[in-house]
């Protein structure tokens, strides 16, 4: 009986957050790798810009995105000119808002874990004949993996819960841009408490399951490398 009011926003939210996380993953890992590895003039300024969406109120981010990507915005006009597309007030707007807001969480976590990788271990690989690409894929990335997974989980959670910026950039169009947080707000406002409750329940269970599984999984992986001698012998 709730099927449409509930399933439509849930599926939309998953689609938006999933796509946002994929974009954030590749851009975030690339940015973290570039920033962790070198020093250049203005690095601190770039660093601050990349982290800004984390501290700004989502409505400020949303307003800024409208300025940039709206009909009269420079990037909005560029997109329209190049491909005749617009990313405001449709579900791409929701992806854009979620991506921008979730980016700093993944970026910060991943950069910290790249910096945490022992330089000597990477250097050892270099003296063994490995080029930079091989060092990255076989050493840096696997060793930074727990941080990467944590970053993905946080980015996904943040993208799933995105409200303010999404409302401003994508609007609140049922069936098209109304994600779960927006649907919960609307349902509560119009007194449909049962719909709101079901949506809240789904969000909570979903988020719990993701975090629980990821924690369990990364713990197992870590244990494999460090398992004690006696335990190894008993296996």
């Amino acid at each position, binding site marked *: 009986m709730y099927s449409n009011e509930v399933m439509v926003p849930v599926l939309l939210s998953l689609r938006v957050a999933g796509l946002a996380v994929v974009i954030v993953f590749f851009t975030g890992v690339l940015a973290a790798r570039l920033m962790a590895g070198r020093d250049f003039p203005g690095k601190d300024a770039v660093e601050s810009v990349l982290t800004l969406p984390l501290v700004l109120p989502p409505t400020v981010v949303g307003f800024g995105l409208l300025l940039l990507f709206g009909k009269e915005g420079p990037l909005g006009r560029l997109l329209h000119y190049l491909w005749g597309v617009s990313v405001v007030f449709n579900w791409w707007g929701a992806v854009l808002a979620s991506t921008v807001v979730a980016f700093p969480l993944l970026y910060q976590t991943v950069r910290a874990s790249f910096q945490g990788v*022992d330089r000597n271990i990477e250097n050892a690989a270099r003296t063994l004949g490995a080029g930079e690409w091989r060092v990255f894929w076989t050493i840096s990335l696997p060793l930074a993996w727990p941080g990467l997974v944590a970053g993905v989980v946080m980015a996904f959670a943040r993208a799933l819960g995105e409200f303010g910026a999404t409302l401003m950039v994508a609007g609140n169009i049922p069936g098209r841009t109304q994600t779960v947080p927006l649907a919960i707000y609307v349902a509560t406002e119009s007194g449909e408490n049962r719909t709101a409750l079901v949506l809240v329940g789904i969000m909570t269970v979903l988020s719990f399951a993701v975090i629980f599984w990821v924690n369990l999984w990364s713990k197992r992986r870590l244990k494999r490398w460090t398992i004690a001698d006696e335990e190894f012998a008993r296996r």
Partner: protein
Amino acid sequence: MKNLLAVNVVKRLPVFTLQVELTVENEILAVLGPSGAGKTTLLQCLSGLQRPQQGEIILNGRVLYSSVSRTNLPPRCRRVGYVFQDYALFPHMTVEQNAAYGITGGRTGRAGEVGLHEVLEMLQITHLAGRYPGQISGGERQRTALARALLAGPELLLLDEPLSALDHETRLKVRGDLKSLQRRWGIPFILVTHDLDEAAFLGDRVIKLERGRVTGRGGAVKQHGEGSLVVG
């Protein structure tokens, strides 16, 4: 020119300037000196992990670094093995995967003739092949690091304080093993240490490094115990 390393480098460091001239043949050269004397910097210049400001490094006729011809081969092209002080094993790979990391098609020298399993056997770590570095002892980790470095087919092996992470008993055993390993493998070893006994026992020749300068050179130390090291 076989198995010969000729080094003449200048590297400015914050507190002093490292200035070293040396040649190494098919032997063990021990570099003795207190902490902060520039020993590790010297090894890093040889391996390409740091860049000197001036001079040249020539290994078996190949120019690894030359300020005149502006040559500076990256570490992966130098064929210089490096055993780090803390061994720097890859914690997410097994002993066997660690050892095999540097094996490529174009191996040269002894490593080309001797396979992975023979080296594991020689260093007595075959039974640990499936274990991770976090599951083995300090001495076993060191042998894994040695196997890994040798299997990449180096023409020169650098060892940074190779015994410092080991307990006393293991240390006594390992230093004998290191010496016979160099004889078997037939490439120059350079090892740095701050321990006079260790330098005298292991080094066919010993140099003393202080504040970036060679302040003493000792010839072959035939018997261990009283060293014939000339310092000053």
